[in-house]
C-alpha cells in the first residue's frame, strides 16, 4: 500500500494515441519525494538534452505534489514540467486550484505526455476510465470558456479542467495553462501543450487517498489551522500590507497600491511615478476593484482567499489572483484600474502569462517610438493607450504580422528585429521577462536569488527572510522573538545586525557568507514546497508561515510512513536542487547567464557580485562555472548524473 501518493502514473503517447497506467518506483519517492523532484528525475532520465522544446520527444508532465489531496491545508499544487521554448532550459511552472487533488482521487500522481497528436484533443480522466477525445470543436475557444464547455459536454460539473487558450494553440512563448482561479503561466509551458495538440486535461476522481499515520498527521494539520488563525489576527508590523499576512500577496483584497504603483516601473519597465497614488486615484481604484470583484476565493483545502471572481458588464466572468491586476495597467500607462481588470479578462481567455505579456507589448511600443519598428508594423493600430494594447494582444496570440515576432518574447523578438532592438529587451533573466522593478542599492541576497533562481522568477525563490532591514532595534527584537522558522539561530543575529545605513547595510551586509546561507534557506523552502505541492503562500513565501523546516519532516513522515527528519529533508532538497541544476547545465546553462537585468539596481558592485556568485557556488558544492562537482553529486546519490556529465565532458577531472 502506498500512502499520500497513489503510486501510479498515466503515460499518454499522443503520436500513437496510447494510454498506459504505470506503477511508479517507490524508491523515487524516498529520493525526490514527488512533484518537482520526481518530475525532474523523469526529465533527466527520459528527455535527452538535445531535445527541442517543440519536439515530440519532449515530455509535458503534470505532477502532483506528494501531499496533494491529503488533509494538509494548502497542499494542492500541480507542477508542470517540460523544456521551455523561451529559456530553452527546464521549465517548471505551477498552479494551485483543485486539479492536483482531483488527480490523486482519480488514482494517479502524474500525467506524462509524450509525442504529438495529429489533431487537437483533450484528455478525460475519470478514475480508471481514461480517454483521448476530439477537441476540434474547441479550436480557438478561450481557456476559461473551454473548462466550462468540457464540463457541460461530459455532464460532470465537478470535473477539474486545465486548458489552454488561443495563445497555447498558436505556440506563443508566453502561453499559460489555465485552471479556475489558477494558472501555470511562466516559461511558456502552454505553448508546449499546444504544440502537442492538447487543448485540455479534465479529471474527475472519487477514490480514497490514504495516510500512513493518520492520528499523528491530523494533529499536525490541526496545529497548522490553529496557527493560520492566530497569524491572520496578528499581521507583521513594519512591512507593507501585502507582506504582513499569509497567502500569496493579497492583491484582490487590498486596495492600497501606493507601493506597487510608485515603486514598480511603468511602460517597458522604465519609469517610476513617484506621485502617482493620490486620493482621487485611490477612490477611483477602490470603486473599480470593489465593482469588479464578486467574491474572494481560495484553492482546495486552504482557508486563504488569494483569488477573486471578476465580473464586469459586457464581458465574461473570470478569476484572478496576485499582481496581474496591475501589470497590464502599468505597462500600458493607463491610470484606470478598470482597464486592468478588463484586458486581464481577455488575456486569461487567450491564456497568456500576465507578467511577460504586458512587457512584450510595452517593449513593442517603445521600439515603435524609437523608429525600430515602423507604422507599417502597426497598420490599423489605435492610438490610445488602452486601444493599442488590446490591438497588439490580439495580434500576438494570433501570431499575425508583428505579433508573430513578438509572440516569441522580448529576447527572441529583439534578435529577429535587430537594428538595436536588443537594448530594449532589458528586463530579462535567462531570456525571460521579469517583474518591472528598478531599484537603487544592490541587495546581496536578492542579487543571488535573481542570478541563480532556476525558475527565473523572483517570487518563486524569495520568502522567509525580510526584504529589507527593520528601522529600529526594538522592531528587530520584536520580530525575532517568535521567529521559530529559522533553521539555525544565527539567522536571528543576521537580522538584528542588519541596518538601513552604515557598515552593516546593503550591499556589504548581509556579508557574502551570510547571503549564501540566507539564499540557501529561502530556496530550500521553495524546493520542499514544490516537491510536496504545498502552496508557497502558506509556506515558503510569507514571513513566519505555518509550515517550516521543523514541522515539514513530521508531515512527510506521518503521511507517507517514510521516516524523514530535518537532515533527511535537507538532503532531499539538495538532491532536487542539484538534479535541476544538472538538467540545466546539461542544456547549456552557463555562469554568464546568471545575472540580473543590468539596470535592476542603479548602484552595482562588479567585484562584490563576482564574490557573491563564487561563494554561492562554493557553498553549493559547485565549481567556478556553477557545475555541481562529482563529489557533490555522489554525496546526494546522484552518481549516475555525475557520470553522465563526465561522459559529456561537462565535468572534467577536477
Amino acid at each position: 500500500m502506498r500512502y499520500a501518493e497513489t503510486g501510479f502514473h498515466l503515460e499518454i503517447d499522443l503520436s500513437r494515441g496510447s494510454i498506459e497506467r504505470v506503477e511508479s518506483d517507490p524508491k523515487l519517492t524516498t529520493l525526490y519525494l514527488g512533484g518537482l523532484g520526481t518530475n525532474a528525475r523523469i526529465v533527466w532520465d527520459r528527455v535527452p538534452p538535445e531535445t527541442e522544446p517543440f519536439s515530440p520527444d519532449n515530455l509535458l508532465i503534470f505532477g502532483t505534489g506528494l501531499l496533494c489531496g491529503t488533509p494538509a491545508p494548502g497542499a494542492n499544487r500541480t507542477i508542470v514540467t517540460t523544456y521551455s521554448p523561451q529559456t530553452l532550459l527546464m521549465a517548471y511552472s505551477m498552479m494551485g486550484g483543485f486539479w492536483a487533488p482531483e488527480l490523486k482521487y482519480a488514482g494517479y500522481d502524474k500525467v506524462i505526455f509524450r509525442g504529438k497528436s495529429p489533431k487537437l484533443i483533450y484528455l478525460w480522466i475519470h478514475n480508471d476510465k481514461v480517454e483521448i477525445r476530439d477537441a476540434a470543436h474547441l479550436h480557438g475557444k478561450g481557456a476559461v470558456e473551454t473548462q466550462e464547455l468540457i464540463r457541460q459536454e461530459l455532464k460532470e460539473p465537478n470535473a477539474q479542467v486545465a486548458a489552454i487558450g488561443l495563445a497555447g494553440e498558436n505556440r506563443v512563448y508566453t502561453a499559460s495553462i489555465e485552471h479556475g482561479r489558477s494558472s501555470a503561466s511562466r516559461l511558456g509551458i502552454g505553448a508546449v501543450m499546444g504544440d502537442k495538440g492538447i487543448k485540455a486535461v479534465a479529471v474527475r476522481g472519487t477514490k480514497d487517498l490514504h495516510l500512513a499515520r493518520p492520528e499523528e498527521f491530523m494533529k499536525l494539520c490541526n496545529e497548522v489551522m490553529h496557527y493560520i488563525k492566530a497569524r491572520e489576527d496578528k499581521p507583521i508590523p513594519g512591512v507593507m500590507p501585502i507582506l504582513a499576512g499569509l497567502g500569496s500577496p493579497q492583491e484582490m483584497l487590498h486596495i492600497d497600491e501606493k507601493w506597487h504603483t510608485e515603486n514598480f516601473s511603468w511602460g517597458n519597465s522604465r519609469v517610476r511615478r513617484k506621485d502617482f497614488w493620490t486620493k482621487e486615484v485611490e477612490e477611483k481604484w477602490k470603486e473599480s476593484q470593489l465593482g469588479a470583484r464578486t467574491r474572494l476565493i481560495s484553492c482546495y483545502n486552504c482557508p486563504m482567499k488569494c483569488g477573486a471572481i471578476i465580473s464586469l458588464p459586457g464581458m465574461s466572468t473570470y478569476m484572478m489572483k496576485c499582481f496581474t491586476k496591475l501589470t497590464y495597467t502599468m505597462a500600458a500607462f493607463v491610470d484606470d484600474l478598470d482597464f486592468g481588470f478588463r484586458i486581464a479578462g481577455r488575456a486569461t481567455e487567450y491564456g497568456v502569462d500576465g507578467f511577460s505579456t504586458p512587457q512584450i507589448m510595452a517593449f513593442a511600443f517603445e521600439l515603435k517610438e524609437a523608429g525600430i519598428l515602423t507604422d507599417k508594423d502597426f497598420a490599423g493600430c489605435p492610438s490610445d493607450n488602452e486601444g493599442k494594447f488590446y490591438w497588439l494582444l490580439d495580434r500576438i496570440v494570433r501570431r499575425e504580422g508583428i505579433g508573430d515576432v513578438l509572440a516569441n518574447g522580448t529576447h527572441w523578438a529583439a534578435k529577429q528585429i535587430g537594428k538595436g532592438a536588443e537594448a530594449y529587451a532589458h528586463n530579462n533573466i535567462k531570456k525571460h521577462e521579469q517583474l518591472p522593478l528598478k531599484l537603487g542599492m544592490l541587495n546581496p541576497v536578492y542579487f543571488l536569488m535573481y542570478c541563480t533562481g532556476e525558475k527565473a522568477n523572483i517570487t518563486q525563490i524569495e520568502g522567509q527572510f525580510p526584504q529589507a532591514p527593520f528601522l529600529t532595534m526594538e522592531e528587530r527584537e520584536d520580530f525575532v522573538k517568535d521567529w521559530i522558522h529559522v533553521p539555525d539561530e544565527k539567522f536571528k543575529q543576521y537580522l538584528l545586525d542588519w541596518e538601513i545605513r552604515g557598515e552593516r547595510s546593503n550591499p556589504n551586509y548581509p556579508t557574502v557568507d551570510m547571503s549564501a546561507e540566507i539564499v540557501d534557506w529561502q530556496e530550500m523552502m521553495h524546493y520542499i514546497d514544490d516537491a510536496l505541492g504545498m502552496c508557497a503562500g502558506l509556506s515558503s513565501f510569507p514571513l513566519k508561515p505555518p509550515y517550516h523546516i521543523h514541522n515539514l519532516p513530521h508531515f512527510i513522515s506521518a503521511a507517507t510512513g517514510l521516516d524523514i527528519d530535518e537532515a533527511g529533508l535537507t538532503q532531499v532538497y539538495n538532491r532536487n536542487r542539484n538534479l535541476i541544476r544538472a538538467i540545466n547545465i546539461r542544456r547549456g546553462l552557463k555562469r554568464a547567464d546568471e545575472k540580473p537585468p543590468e539596470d535592476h539596481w542603479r548602484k552595482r558592485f562588479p567585484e562584490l557580485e563576482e564574490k557573491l556568485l563564487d561563494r554561492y557556488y562554493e557553498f553549493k558544492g559547485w565549481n567556478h562555472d556553477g557545475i555541481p562537482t562529482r563529489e557533490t553529486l555522489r554525496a546526494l546519490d546522484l552518481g549516475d548524473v555525475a557520470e553522465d556529465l563526465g561522459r559529456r565532458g561537462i565535468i572534467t577531472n577536477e
Partner: protein
Amino acid sequence: MSNVTKKVRTIKIDLDKCNGCRACEMICSASHANPKYSSNNPERSRIRLIRHPIKDVYLPVYAGEYAGAECAGRDKYVIDGKEYDECAFCRASCPSRTLFKEPDSGLPLKCDMCEGEDEPLCVKWCINDALVCEEREEEAEEAEEVKPGDMEMGLESLADKYGLQKIMETVARMSKKG
C-alpha cells in the same frame, strides 16, 4: 410522557463567507474513514459544496434523509440574480443525483453532526465562518427517539433495490459461509 429539554445542534451557513475551499468535504470524509482519518475522499463527504465559480454559486449542503425515490420537485431558485438548480437546497440522498452516496457501493450517506466531537469538524475547519455551529434548547418527549444509523440506512436502500426478502436470504447465506 413528560417533556425534557434537549440541546440541539444546528449549523448556520453563510454563503457570502464561503471561499470555496472544500476543506469541509475533506475533513468530513477523513473523519468518517475507518480507522478514523486513515483516508479521505470528498466523494464520501456528508457535506458537499455545490460550486459554480463563474456564476458565483457557492452552496454547502448537508446530507439528510435517504429517499428511496426521487421527488416531483422541479423548482429553481433565483436569489440575488443567481440561479440554483432544482435540487440545490435539498439534503436527500436520492436516486436523481450522485450526491451523498458512497462512491463504491452507492449506499446513502447522512450527516451525523460529528457526535462525540466538540463541534462538527466541518465547522471547525471553516475558519472563514461560512459554517457556524449553534446550539439551542428544544423541548422533546422523553422517549428516546431511535435514529437510523449508517447501516440501517444502507440496508433500507438495499431493501428498496432488491427487496427485504432477498437481503435476508443473502445475509443467511453469508453467515453460513462465515
